[in-house]
């Protein structure tokens, strides 16, 4: 029986799993003792193989919904792209990537956009996911690796604070570390407007009004200062900007923060004091980050961690929980609008020269920075005439989704690579069927910054291509006549070798990472600049990768949500995940049961005359959706919740963007409810 050791296709925990091919051709998932999941898997992982031979899987390219040959599809794509670029401009063609793509694909996609298409317009769905945390970490630490320490450190923390993270449902095997941390006698504090399973298991649950995590962080720092809990010698020797930050939180005295957040002063004090007991770790996730002030919120929590002297101290620190499977590697290697591989900036002349040499082109040929995901989608049909989508389903995952679906429909040409007919693929002029995770090799970088191997159990079924092969073939056809002879490889290990060279000397340096080392060492933590050097499981122990080696603190101020509730839209809507589903649900909705619902407090339901299951019309300023009521005392009576895996939910959400990260405010908008 053919068996491989690989990882789950879904979230950033990238649980180790075994895949075996049964004699009947079916694929079986088995547990695997990898350092992150230690043999654990959730129902998404256990059932992941069911999509491999799913009847809804695409088996041939589709042109206008009809099956076609690959050559027909490629020819059409190339001629359309060339026509559009001739008539308009190179930038009239855009690329939209995803945080689930392997490092090799991410790297190739950035190269494909900049070199083969020559467009500045490339961005990806990670903009809706990690961009706020990434921007804040880059500013503060000079580097963005979700967890700057291995997962196992969590279990050793005396105090663990999770802000807007519901790992018990989103990445269940992660919660083993939480269980262990509590069993070790640790204090666990969870900040969430909902009493999620994660929050219910915590020592203390802080249940703030949606959109007030920033005030919470500022209030905690205020108490840290008032009670003399700051680590003055650390702040003095390892940070810059403390005086301004210190001054800025004088305005966040406990009673004010209590009123803003609804969290009692006593609980604020308990939290601040707990952070000073021994080892402490603060983690943020999308609940704190998917806001129009997400960067400032993360910055405030980083300030708090720095004031307490946590980052770089063994067993302590600040981290963010990456969501998508390759959300970490996906934000490092060039599918972001402003970025080149190795977490380099596209407006940095040295980075451009470095990449130009590797790509065999002139640095001047590399386009400049593009614009962020939502802004790019917003230009579809006007400035952007054609779009190519890889590993993403923005019709479901973008905010203000009805508007975005309209923009997609107005394109002259839409190409989608996927393995099922996702909602976005259904709108495409050309759909290219591509391999699934069990059919391809490559690397992913998990939420710890550990580079791991994805291994193919079997070849893709006949007629199905791979994302890399699509980029290679189109790259070759589009570069036809390019005398520089730019190469696009379809073999992942060859692409990875190019990625190593490309990232050498960058912030996210993979130069010393080889597939062989990854196999031998249970993954390699970046940065790893040379093959004879160890990876870096723990960062910041003696200095930060900033010009002067100090972490930066920036004063930030709380501000209200972009769309406050009012008489017409009196309730907050917040969105999130459920255990059985992943992202836009294109994969998991075809495997696991469940449907959209609206979670609301029994008091609210009673006042509105709703019962369990009552069909409800949820209306925001941008759209509406229908969902049955699900009553739960776990949510605040002023807030309702809907899982974002289903079409419709993001028709409600707000496209208000963070000024720095361009993250949309997924986590709060104002709605009203009606009986449907």
């Amino acid at each position, binding site marked *: 029986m053919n068996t491989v050791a690989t990882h789950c296709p879904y979230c950033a925990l990238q649980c180790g799993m075994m895949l075996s091919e049964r004699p009947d051709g079916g694929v079986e998932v088995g*547990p695997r003792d990898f350092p992150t999941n230690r*043999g*654990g*898997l*959730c*129902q998404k992982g*256990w059932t992941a193989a069911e999509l491999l031979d799913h009847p809804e899987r695409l088996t041939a390219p589709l042109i206008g919904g009809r099956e076609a040959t690959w050559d027909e599809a490629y020819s059409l794509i190339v001629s359309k792209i060339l026509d559009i670029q001739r008539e308009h401009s190179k930038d009239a063609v855009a690329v939209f990537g995803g945080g689930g793509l392997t490092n090799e694909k991410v790297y190739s996609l950035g190269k494909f956009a900049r070199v083969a298409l020559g467009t500045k317009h490339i961005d990806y769905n990670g903009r809706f996911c990690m961009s706020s945390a990434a921007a804040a970490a880059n500013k503060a630490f000079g580097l963005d690796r979700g967890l700057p320490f291995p997962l196992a450190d969590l279990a050793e923390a005396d105090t663990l604070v999770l802000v807007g993270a519901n*790992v*018990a*449902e989103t990445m*269940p*095997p*992660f*919660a*083993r570390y*939480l*269980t262990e941390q509590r069993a070790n006698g640790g204090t666990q504090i969870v900040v969430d407007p909902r*009493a999620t*399973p994660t*929050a*219910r*298991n915590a020592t203390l*649950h802080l249940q703030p*009004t949606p959109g007030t995590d920033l005030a919470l962080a500022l209030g905690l720092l205020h108490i840290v*200062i*008032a*009670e*003399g809990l700051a680590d003055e010698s650390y702040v003095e020797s390892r940070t810059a900007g403390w005086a301004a930050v*210190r*001054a*800025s939180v*004088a*305005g966040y*005295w*406990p*009673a*004010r923060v*209590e*009123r803003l*957040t*609804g*969290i*009692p*002063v*006593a*609980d604020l004090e308990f939290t601040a004091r707990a952070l000073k007991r021994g080892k402490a770790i603060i983690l943020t996730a999308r609940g704190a980050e998917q806001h129009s002030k997400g960067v400032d919120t993360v910055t405030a929590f980083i300030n708090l961690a720095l004031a307490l002297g946590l980052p770089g101290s063994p067993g302590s620190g600040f981290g963010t929980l990456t969501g998508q499977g390759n959300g970490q590697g996906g934000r490092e290697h060039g599918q972001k609008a402003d970025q080149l591989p190795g977490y380099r900036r596209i407006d940095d002349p040295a980075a451009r020269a470095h990449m130009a040499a590797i790509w065999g082109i002139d640095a001047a040929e590399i386009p400049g920075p593009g614009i962020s995901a939502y802004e790019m989608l917003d230009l579809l049909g006007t400035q952007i005439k054609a779009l190519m989508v890889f590993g993403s389903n923005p019709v479901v995952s973008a905010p203000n989704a009805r508007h975005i679906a309209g923009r997609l429909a107005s394109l002259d040409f839409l190409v989608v690579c996927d393995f099922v007919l996702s909602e976005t693929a259904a709108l495409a002029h050309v759909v290219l069927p591509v391999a699934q995770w069990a059919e391809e090799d490559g690397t992913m970088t998990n939420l710890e910054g550990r580079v791991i191997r994805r291994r193919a159990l079997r070849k893709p079924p006949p007629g199905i291509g791979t994302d890399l092969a699509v980029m290679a073939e189109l790259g070759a056809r589009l570069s036809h006549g390019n005398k520089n002879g730019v190469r696009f490889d379809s073999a992942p290990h060859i692409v990875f070798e190019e990625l190593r060279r490309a990232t050498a000397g960058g912030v996210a340096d993979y130069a010393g990472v080889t597939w062989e080392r990854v196999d031998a060492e249970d993954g390699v933590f970046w940065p790893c600049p040379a093959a004879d050097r160890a990876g870096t499981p723990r960062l910041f122990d003696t200095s930060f990768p900033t010009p002067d080696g100090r972490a930066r603190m920036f*004063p930030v*101020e709380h501000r209200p949500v972009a769309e406050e509730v009012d008489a017409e839209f009196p309730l907050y809507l917040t969105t999130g995940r459920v*255990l*059985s589903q992943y992202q836009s649900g294109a994969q998991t909705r075809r495997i696991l049961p469940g449907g959209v619902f609206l979670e609301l407090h*029994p*008091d609210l339901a*009673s*006042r509105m005359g709703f019962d369990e299951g009552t069909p409800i019309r949820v209306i925001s300023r941008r759209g509406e959706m229908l969902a049955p009521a699900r009553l*739960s*005392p*776990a949510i605040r*009576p*002023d807030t309702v919740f809907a899982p974002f895996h289903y079409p419709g939910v993001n028709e409600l959400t707000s496209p208000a963007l963070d000024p720095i990260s361009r993250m949309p405010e997924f986590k709060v908008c104002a709605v009203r409810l009606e009986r449907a």
Partner: protein
Amino acid sequence: MRILIVGNGMAGARLASDLSSLDTRADVMVLGAEQHPAYNRILLSSVLAGKHRPHDIGLVGGAKARLGVTVTAIDRAAQAVTTESGERIGYDHLILATGSRALVPPLPGLDKAITFRTLDDCHRILGQIDGASTALVLGGGLLGLEAARGLAGRGLKVDVVHAVGHLMERQLDSNASRVLERTLTELGITVHLNASAVRAGADWLELADGRVMRADLLVVACGVRPEIGLATEAGLKVERGIVIDERLRTSDRRISAIGDCAQVGSEVSGLVAPAWEQARVVARQLTGAEPLAVYTPPAPVTRLKASGIDLAAMGSLQAEGAEDLSFQDISSGTYARLLIKNERVAGAVMLGDNPSVGKVIQLFDRKLPVPLDRRALLLGRSLDGSSSVEVDSPALMPDAATVCQCNSVTKGALVNCWRDGRRVLAEVVERTRVTTGCGSCRDTVEGIMNWLARGEAA
């Protein structure tokens, strides 16, 4: 437009900060009479208690403030103010944020006493506590109790003298006052109610009943009065405070007033929340962000939180026509009373350990409907659906109960495993994948298997 702010306190500094964050090029000047840069007056009691250092209570201003500049007159016709040194400063819009001053009762000898209002007052008190072991505080309102708590925090034995029959009579009912008195006693603060002072010296008070109370230090904290002198002399309409309309304009449309000095309707607030909301509104008007912005007063919340004291009071305690809920546990110093009208919190006082205090303040602040089960308001988080799925006996668990959320495994599925002969945890795990997610159900699963082994399922 030249924007001139007179007063660099909580309101004035906040306005300057709001103006600069809305428009970095706004032409703003702030004149502050005190020599200190703007500071957070809320934290003075914390400075007194030794928690905050004086230089840690600075407020982030937005404009360059000129310190130690006292304005002596407003020339409304010329749109200029005159300072103590005779300088004239012109304005296109003037904002009076002159605040309030400590009220000192007109008693013989009391004029020598130290008040508790400014950072200088704070320094003066701190200058006297070295070697002191006792203090007298005249005034049992919020300010007096904050002063008393701060002094007690420095290890002084404190006597609070209050003329009325209960503490903080504007915010508390008599039951709350009694519980608070008890709490204060434990902190080394003795309260004397119905005690009118008739004469005073630098370190003593004589009461109406003839008692003379002595201490190493006397602090007068009898409340504040709006600082309206400048406005009065300029001929602006003043009553108790400077009268302003809903757009925060005085009787001269080129002059606004905000903060403690301002009177909205018949109310003079003395709290920071209204002052900051007023600053926000004026900033939006003057920067053009919202030229017609109007002010809606936030609901008044009084909060006293220091080690050993946790007090929140809000709204009206008029019981007429209201649901009147209360909980008290005098031995632990806990008291909660809520008045509910039209499903909204009309008033509340919460003292001691009340986990729901944050929720109650928000319900009051945002005028949100209260829980149908009112006990959640008095008792806090315990009734709020936060209990986890822990079952004492597996026998009482329904078969449909989910044991493992991560892999959707019910108790029934475990029972079926047992019946199929899978009696070792590893076999059950292999079949059902129970415990393979977060692992937190392991104890429950083992409990069910033990129960099955004992034959209770038969």
